[in-house]
């Protein structure tokens, strides 16, 4: 049976941002063939960590199957290869995947799109990075596991990987660092400083359970978090969400957060491919079968591997929109709808939000409890709440 550890990249679980009511596993809307969708779409491919025979072929098949989710003429602007793609694709399979992507979809004619691939340091070789660059990826999402990093752990492999990425002009670096309560604070500081020096555009610190002990609070201590935050903010990085630092200028007020991380909100359709992948189509959410074998079996028989659809529209609820604003910008405009504001009375009383001019902003305590705040806010209108 597949476990969550098989899916590196599902750390952005956004139950709090996308309340859903599971319904039948069929498309909850019908295309008439006359729909047009001016906004671009994105493709997010989630690759399991466990090597799976036939995965590359399955993804190619699923790409063809998922075409029916797109409106006529809808273009693809972003491609995200998440999880562990290099465990599933060798060089020629990766080339074929991108080839099928380029020839199977209408690509948006723009330089704004993000084409990123998740890599661990062991796969950051000059040959792999040359191929990645040649296939027109513009970001590497470097995954680092520092969950048991002691004070004397070397950062050399991570530094080597980040430096090599920097040798390829136009290939940007985003970093996802897995930390636990066992991670040494000095190590995090050294790593963060090195990544900043390598022009890392985004650094996300993902809390995970300490591998060597069970239970208890697994977040790194507050003093360490504050020290790292200060280090980054002094270098020009700003905090998004509760653990993501970036020095990139985002898409104005159009930033959104999803299971694939922060993204440009102009993209309102996401095709999620692979086992356990999530997608958004016509404001409805779907999730593919989580079990890898079940996913492969469905695709092999030529059927959509979707396990569930959400019946509730996910993007247009004012409460969900407010949750997105708080999560992405730590602010709410003063003209937020009264019902949402009523739901924020308790967080305000707790000191999580404060008034700032004609808007509201999160305090440090609010940022610490951001996910709880957003979940409560987004679920307020959920019928199961």
């Amino acid at each position: 049976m597949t476990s969550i550890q098989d899916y590196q990249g599902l750390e952005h679980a956004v139950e709090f941002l996308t309340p859903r009511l599971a319904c039948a596993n069929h498309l909850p809307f019908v295309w008439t063939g006359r729909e047009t969708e001016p906004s671009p779409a994105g493709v997010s491919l989630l690759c399991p960590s466990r090597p799976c025979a036939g995965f590359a072929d399955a993804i190619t098949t699923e790409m063809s199957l998922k075409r029916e989710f797109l409106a006529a003429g809808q273009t693809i602007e972003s491609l995200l290869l998440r999880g562990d793609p290099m465990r599933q694709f060798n060089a020629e399979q990766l080339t074929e995947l991108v080839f099928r992507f380029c020839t199977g979809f209408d690509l948006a004619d723009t330089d704004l799109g993000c084409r990123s691939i998740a890599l661990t340091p062991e796969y950051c070789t000059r040959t792999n990075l040359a191929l990645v660059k040649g296939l027109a990826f513009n970001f590497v999402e470097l995954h680092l596991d520092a969950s048991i990093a002691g004070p004397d752990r070397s950062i050399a492999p991570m530094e080597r990987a980040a430096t090599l990425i920097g040798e390829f002009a136009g290939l940007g670096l985003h970093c996802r660092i897995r930390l636990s309560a066992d991670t040494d604070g000095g190590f995090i500081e050294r790593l963060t400083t090195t990544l900043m020096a390598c022009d890392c555009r985004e650094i996300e610190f993902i809390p995970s359970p300490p591998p060597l002990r069970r239970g208890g609070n697994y977040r790194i201590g507050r003093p360490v978090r504050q020290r790292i935050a200060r280090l980054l903010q002094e270098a020009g990085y700003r905090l998004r969400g509760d653990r993501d630092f970036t020095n990139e200028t985002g898409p104005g007020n159009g930033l959104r957060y999803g299971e694939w991380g922060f993204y440009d909100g102009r993209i309102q359709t996401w095709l999620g491919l692979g086992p356990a992948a999530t997608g958004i189509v016509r404001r409805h959410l779907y999730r593919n079968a989580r079990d890898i074998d079940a996913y492969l079996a469905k695709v092999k028989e030529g059927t959509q591997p979707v396990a569930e659809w959400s019946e509730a529209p996910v993007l247009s609820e004012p409460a969900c929109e407010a949750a997105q604003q708080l999560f992405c910008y730590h602010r709410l405009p003063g003209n937020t709808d009264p019902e949402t504001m009523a739901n924020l009375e308790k967080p305000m009383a707790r000191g999580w939000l404060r008034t700032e001019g004609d808007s509201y902003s999160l305090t440090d305590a609010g940022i610490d409890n951001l996910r709880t705040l957003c979940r409560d806010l987004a679920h307020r209108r959920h019928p199961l709440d």
Partner: protein
Amino acid sequence: MPTDDIRWIDDRGRDNDYNPPELNPRGIIMEAKCPHSATTVNCNDCRMSALCLPMALQADEIDRLNRIVERGRPLQRNEYIYHAGEPFKSIYAVRSGAVKGFTVNDEGVEQVTGFYLPGEIFGMDGIGHPNHINSAVALETAAICEIPFSRLEELSTQIPSLQRHFFRLMSREITNDQQLITMLSKNSAEERIATLLTSISARNARRKLSGSRFRLPMSRADIGNYMGLTVETVSRVFSRFQKQDILSVDKKEIEILDLDRLRSMANT
């Protein structure tokens, strides 16, 4: 007139079994097995089959591939295989000679993007685009096999090993191009020239030719353009390599005297 049941011998000693040689468009007699000849070459007995698309195929699969390959007359020097902007329809394989790929920017300045030797596939810049991004021109008399891409795709669905090999070639081409671009941005003139020479050496060795003694099919100007160097710098580097006993150079004829040293300069 001689008939089949009478054995005859002409004044040149040629008998009934003699097959007259084909003539190329310039009236020059070509031997039937000449690589520039279009009429008798077959993927099965092509000298480049061990490098080219047939490499991964069984005999009957090679026959099926051979049926979709189009072979025209040999191209003369500076003759185009395709121009940038032309609709992408085919990929190409070099059977003999050499080909240069290049782009031309808005100011009309040419930028060489690659050199292709026998057994190598080119034209893949058009894949995923409606038109070719680069142009391709023969550097010397060249024989080219044209493989219509839609037919190759169709055949690949029936022959999985062909599909795998094709994407292997594509990924190698893409990787080599990017590694070259990266190398150009940071290496010295000597390191760049060393990289090019070791690359040509290795590609010749793959064709079971000498990796240490070969003829450069491209001009010094083309080498400079490709490497991001002036033609004077290219000539100076060649002279320096001669003085250091790394190379012996006689116009386009190259003999590598110290391949290990050249490789270490190229960081390979």
